[in-house]
């Protein structure tokens, strides 16, 4: 069946935006319902660092107050980093895909989007925030569930899955990086080793709490948590799991659908897999975690660029100035034609 390059890109970003909104909603939900025990966690400024949005945030708000940060990440429809923007962008992609995707995928997303639009401002108040984000997270899960149940398994579905897995790997990598940086800062400031609550927050933010408890009954320490989220092949939000899936999908594209352009991306996946193995075996994983994550982020960005050039008909991007890792959005990757 014919798959337009534009539609492949839209499937890729539909999944990315849904996964991004789900991650963001889960992180906010978890931190507003479980984070209260620790007075240090009441603020939300760290979210800005998590997503490397310092510059964009400063354009919109003077202070990183909780109210401003929550507005920035949840309800501000014009901010590409917000949940509301992600759902809107996902819906716009889905709208252009309506002739292709199952009707139930579109209908779920459209009514979800309409429900989100109808939420009043008080739904984002601190007291209701966890509940609201929980509802949003479930709306995203529903979309992924409908896709899993009904989306035809052709090339299009493979691009959907690529978007899903790349975004998920990106989210997990950012979370690991930021949380371990927080830990290092706290220790440098003389605070003791992180307690159970701290580890539970990270694990719950990655929807990995129960699995970790069962896998590591002796409890959490930095190396175990890092290894679990980085390299555990059965944990659906670990980098290794995502990388495996990306590799399988790329192989399908090359083998089943004869898309030989997948070759370059597959080579990158080989080196990504090797890098993960090396990192997992490293005795000083915790010490080197920031470097590993930095490298991972670069790999994911390069992969997205390669997919754009190989399949979406995008021009190679202009070289970017060196600096902190950017958060990719669809508008950034779309070429001007």
């Amino acid at each position, binding site marked *: 069946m014919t798959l337009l390059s534009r539609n492949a890109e839209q499937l890729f970003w539909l999944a990315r935006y849904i996964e991004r909104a789900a991650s963001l909603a889960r992180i906010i939900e978890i931190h507003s319902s479980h984070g209260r025990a620790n007075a240090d966690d009441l603020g939300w400024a760290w979210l800005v660092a998590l997503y490397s949005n310092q510059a964009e945030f400063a354009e919109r708000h003077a202070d990183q107050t909780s109210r401003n940060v929550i507005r920035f990440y949840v309800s501000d429809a014009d901010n590409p980093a917000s949940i509301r923007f992600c759902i809107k962008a996902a819906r716009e992609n889905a709208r252009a895909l309506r002739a292709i995707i199952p009707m139930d995928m579109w*209908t779920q997303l459209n009514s979800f989007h309409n429900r989100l639009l109808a939420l009043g401002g008080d739904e984002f108040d601190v007291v209701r925030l966890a509940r609201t984000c929980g509802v949003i997270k479930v709306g995203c899960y529903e979309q992924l569930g409908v896709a899993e149940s009904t989306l035809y398994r052709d090339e299009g579905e493979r691009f959907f899955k690529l978007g899903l897995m790349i975004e998920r790997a990106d989210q997990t990598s950012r979370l690991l990086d930021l949380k371990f940086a927080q830990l290092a800062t706290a220790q440098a400031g003389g605070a003791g080793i992180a307690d159970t609550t701290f580890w539970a927050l990270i694990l719950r933010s990655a929807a990995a709490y129960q699995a970790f408890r069962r896998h590591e009954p002796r409890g959490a320490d930095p190396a175990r948590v890092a290894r679990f989220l980085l390299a555990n092949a059965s944990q659906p939000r670990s980098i290794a799991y995502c990388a495996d899936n990306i590799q399988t999908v790329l192989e399908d594209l090359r083998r089943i659908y004869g898309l030989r352009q997948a070759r370059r991306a597959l080579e990158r996946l080989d080196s990504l897999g090797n890098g993960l193995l090396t990192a997992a075996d490293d005795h000083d994983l915790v010490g080197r975690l920031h470097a590993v994550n930095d490298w991972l982020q670069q790999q994911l960005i390069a992969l997205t660029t390669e997919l754009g050039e190989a399949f979406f008909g995008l021009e190679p991007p202009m070289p970017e100035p060196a600096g902190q890792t950017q958060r990719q959005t669809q508008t950034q990757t779309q070429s001007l034609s």
Partner: protein
Amino acid sequence: MGTLSALKDPKLAGPFDGYDPKPFFCELLGTSAQPSKPLVGIWQRLQSLDVTTLLRRAADAERELFNLGITFTVYSDKDAIDRILPFDVIPRVMTASEWGVVEQGVTQRVRALNMFLWDIYHDRHILNDGTVPAALVLGNGNYRPEMVGFDPRHGTYIHINGTDLVRDGKGAFHVLEDNGRAPSGVSYVVENRHMMQRAFPDLMQGLRVRPVSDYGERLLGKLIEVAPLGVTEPSVVLLSPGVYNSAYFEHIFLAREMGVPLVEGRDLVVKNDHVFMRTVAGLAPVDVIYRRINDDFLDPEAFNPESRLGVAGLMRASKAGHVTLANAVGTGVADDKAVYAYVPRIIEYYLKEKPILPNVETHICGEPDGLAYTLDNLEKLVVKPVGESGGYGIVVGPKASRTEIEAVREKLAADPANFISQPMVDLSVCPTLTPGGVAPRHVDLRPYAVTGKHTWVLPGGLTRVALKEGSIIVNSSQGGGTKDTWVLEEDAP
């Protein structure tokens, strides 16, 4: 209304109590204020539901249309607002024999218009012998000299046609307008039916209503018939201006129902006069394009150079016979409001048959007699600018204020050729659900004819209803809604 009350239980209030179509032809009750024999059963079923139930089910249906995204989008500076086309839950019902007349009449008309287009882009007999004034055609803004000498497959220029019909006080159909460029609305015909089947399964139960859901398959079949010669398995696409077009839902619908790619100009490229689409596997050939982009914007190389919606080189590929455009370029000259007045003569000229569906009487203001008559009778006439669509610029004499009449008089004097006038047509009415109960509202009908080698007409078509009391303007941009249209399999269900 004595005859009606005999049909219902006098002890129960029904939604039709007090329903009075007055002097108009009623789609359900005819002229006798009594349901014609085949429709009694439907009337009784409707009468057994109370107004509250009807209103509740109507609200459910509208909410569902919204969530299904069966909407058109209105763009303001900041927001995109999705609106549903208001949907009235009381269907318009036609018997098999009523429909038969429409079906034959529409088929006849489309055939004649295609022959007219062939003639004016080839030998021009009809112009040379003065049957239709040459200036009207050759000086028309929608006439495309690029099409001279071009031979479309099976002589078909208008592949998809919508004919707007109204019914006079006696129930006779008249053609109000032809739409031979890119008529829209067919998606609502099919979706309205789905909605009725969900919201009113009890109303349809046991009735044999002709299906409409095979429109996509039929359309694809016809488009395959007109593929370039020698192409055995043609690749068909639907070309849309994109998500910002207000009819985008319909483009999605048509692509989905045909199972073909929904492309935009940026997805297509012309190389060596062949058209290709950009896919993940590279360039793939395109043989037939159902295009929902106007002539002007179709090909920046041939027409408007500013167009970013079209594809450069499309006209070259079409003229080389490597791709079929549906509808063909240049059909706008046949559905023009000024040419419309000549269509009965066009039918007789090519087919040697009497028109099955007459025109509404039309005065051409570009001709001295027509202008004089129009100026003398402005209070009685409907004046229409010929270049507009969507109901814009229409002045309804009997309902217009003195100021409006004088304003149109000035416009007529300044540019008479830009107008036609017609007497007030008594549009038929159909029982329609209003917040205050069931009331008569004016309707028209747009059947869709699809032509490849031959013509197929979708049973029924789009019934548009003017929801405002007394209004005869059914356009969605001016307060119109739609109804499901049922064509019964037989005359007696």
